[in-house]
């Protein structure tokens, strides 16, 4: 999987002069390139797909994973800020799920570093996400004959919450980028020039490296706050509940997203977010953890200015002095990292779900 950059090497590169750094960078960061193939169990992934699009996985049976992870948006949210579970808003952009199975750390703040099984549990049970008591979910699934069959066919036995947390990650593996000009070696001349800048003058490679174009490490780039998190009480209440749960001090008076600080509660991590992958950006606008940047040209402009304003900002970010054409080339390169949309029935469950739970006949005679 992803080779992680050693911090020592990264620091060295950062302290060198810009010109020097360029050559050092090209040599020392894991190269960008195609993603490895993942082995997929078809029956399990098919089950995971049906679960992913099923409203009955949320407490009030009103929303599925796809409510926030929209296929047409590379399985991210439509708006800057994700919707929340009914009665709530949210305080972050829903991450794209394309290639999420290639990561080893999840969420914008990296608070889950184990596996997608835990990530799935978090999404299903979190009160402002799906607010589901998994014991009820399990009994709902047992009441659906097609699930009973699919769990059995997948080798899981009867439906259980434990196998839901295995089947959905299996499905997520199928959401892997395919067909990008970058992977096919079909980039335009402008995109090729952009790639050179990416690895060199623009210094993007320092953080966006390896096949995912991410080091999967936390950095503070000074992205401005999205004030809608605080001006809309629906979003703010979810934010407050979240930071309360994470144990952030004085969480009620917080006026910023603490990012990776949530995980470590260490000052030096304030405002850091895990470097996102740069694949499928064509579909996943708006950008950043809170969706404050609308277009890729604006993202490049943001970096050209040396990132945003934050006393804890990464020393890797400096004004880049890119010309208008160079900026265009960089955008062309970013666009070449997007492949085919994953919206066909191969990825999307397109059959209807039963409107009611069918009754188990002969109920008093059969075992529960």
């Amino acid at each position, binding site marked *: 999987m992803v080779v992680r950059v050693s911090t020592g090497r990264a620091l060295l590169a950062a302290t060198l002069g810009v010109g020097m750094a360029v050559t050092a960078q090209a040599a020392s960061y894991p190269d960008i390139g195609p993603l490895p193939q993942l082995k997929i169990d078809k029956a399990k992934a098919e089950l995971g797909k049906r679960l992913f699009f099923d409203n009955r996985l*949320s*407490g*009030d*049976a*009103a929303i599925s994973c796809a409510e926030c992870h929209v296929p047409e948006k590379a399985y991210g949210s439509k708006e800057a800020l994700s919707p929340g*579970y*009914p*009665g*709530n808003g949210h305080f972050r952009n829903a991450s794209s799920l394309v290639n999420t199975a290639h990561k080893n750390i999840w969420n914008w703040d990296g608070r889950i570093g184990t596996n997608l099984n835990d990530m799935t*549990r*978090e999404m*299903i*049970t979190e*009160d*402002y996400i799906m*607010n*589901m*008591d*998994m*014991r*009820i979910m*399990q*009994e*709902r699934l*047992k*009441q659906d004959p097609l699930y009973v069959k699919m769990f059995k066919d997948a080798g899981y036995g009867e439906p*259980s*919450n*434990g196998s839901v947390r295995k089947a959905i990650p299996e499905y997520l593996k199928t959401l892997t980028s395919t067909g990008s000009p970058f992977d096919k070696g079909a980039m335009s001349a402008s995109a090729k020039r952009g790639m050179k800048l990416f690895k060199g003058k623009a210094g993007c490679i320092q953080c966006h490296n390896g096949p995912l174009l991410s080091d999967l490490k936390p950095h503070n780039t000074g992205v*401005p*706050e999205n*004030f809608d998190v*605080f*001006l*809309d*009480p*629906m979003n*703010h*209440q*979810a934010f*407050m*509940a*979240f930071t*309360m*749960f994470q144990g952030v001090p004085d969480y*009620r008076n917080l*006026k*910023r997203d603490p990012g990776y600080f949530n995980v470590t509660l260490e000052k030096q991590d304030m*405002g850091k977010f895990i470097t996102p992958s740069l694949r499928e950006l064509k579909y996943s606008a708006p950008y950043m953890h809170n969706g404050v940047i609308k277009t890729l040209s604006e993202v490049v402009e943001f970096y050209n200015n040396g990132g945003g*304003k*934050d*006393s804890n900002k990464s020393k890797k970010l400096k004004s880049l002095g890119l010309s208008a054409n160079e900026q265009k080339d960089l955008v062309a390169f970013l666009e070449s990292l997007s492949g085919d949309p994953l919206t066909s029935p191969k990825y999307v469950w397109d059959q209807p779900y039963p409107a*009611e*739970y069918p*009754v*188990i006949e002969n*109920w*008093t005679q059969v*075992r*529960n």
Partner: protein
Amino acid sequence: MSIKKIAPTLVAVAVATVLTACQAQETKTGSAASGKSMAAKTAQSGPPPLAPLGAPPIPPDNKQTPAKIELGKILFFDPRLGGDASTGCSTCHEPDQGWAWAEDFSRGYPGTVHWRNSQTIINSAYYARNFWAGSVPSLEKQAPSAAKGGVAGNGENDIMESRLALIPEYRKRFKEVFGTEWPIIGHAWKAIAAFERTLVQRDTPLDKYLLGDKSALTEQQVQGMALFNGKAGCIQCHNGELASDQDYYNIGVPPNTRWEEDGLAQVTFRFELYAKGMTEEGYRTTKADPGFYFRGKNKWDKGKFRTPSLRYTTFTAPYMHNGVFYTMEEVVDFYNRGGFDEDGRTTAFPENKSKLIKPLGLTDEEKENLVAFLEAFSGEEMLMEKPAMPEYAPLFTRAELEAAQEEK
């Protein structure tokens, strides 16, 4: 976020069962100590007679104040004390449905149905333990259990407390009542309990009669009362001020057939068995609500429920823990048959049926008199307007947010 939502494996359930078995003793001594009427029954004096209802007990650590009661009232009606802000206390305890829900099973949280009948809030302040199986020891403990239960409010503390923090009127009222800068969710339950302690009815025809107003009951009702205290034997359990000895019996109520006919009800049924820590085999084979069994996991407690008060029952049909009877006539017929419904069905745990329940041999006229008397346990219907719900407002201004951004 809470761990309760992560289903343990069935192995873990089995462990939990062993653990809760230790509570059996506690439960037993607990009920013996509180069951004064049990002692009374063995003594020669017989069960305590029906009596006028006094003031409800007020716990010393949750005194009644007008401001607290008013806050509790608003909270009781506020659906934001629940998961998706749709289902608050009053949703299942509707004032014009007897402060309960007028179907056999209570409505549930959206996407679910409950598995028990919704109990009235009226006079709930008098019980030493709440719920049909007495699973909680106070109204203060009952409220969070209702607000968080997966088929009830399905809320979580962190989100509910955050909502209160973003509603200026609540910030003001909590500060005034509890003295805290920010609303604390535990205080919400206290305020709701204080409000519930005002929902009592002490001026029924029966209270008036027992206080000396002999015209408060009709002649027929007086005859019904004699049956209640004598031939029909109701007084053995429905006694004292509350018309409840607060003890637990299996009186033969048959399982609700909805579990055989309704898929959604089947989902909840299995969930409840699972959540309440049945053994694997118990989970697989149980087909009726074991009730009081869940408290101590003693098999002789299967099918037992707390004797409910008979007060205010004119407004709280349907009756019993699973709402199988829609009228008082059906209830009286059920008792007259010795705990069988009209199809001859009885409890799924007949081995535990109370010896006190046997055919009564009441004539039609006697049954009518008894039903007439049961009406004397209810006074006027207690209706209440839903209070205005206080609104959300942003906590910070844009200028404050901009200043904070500058300081980053």
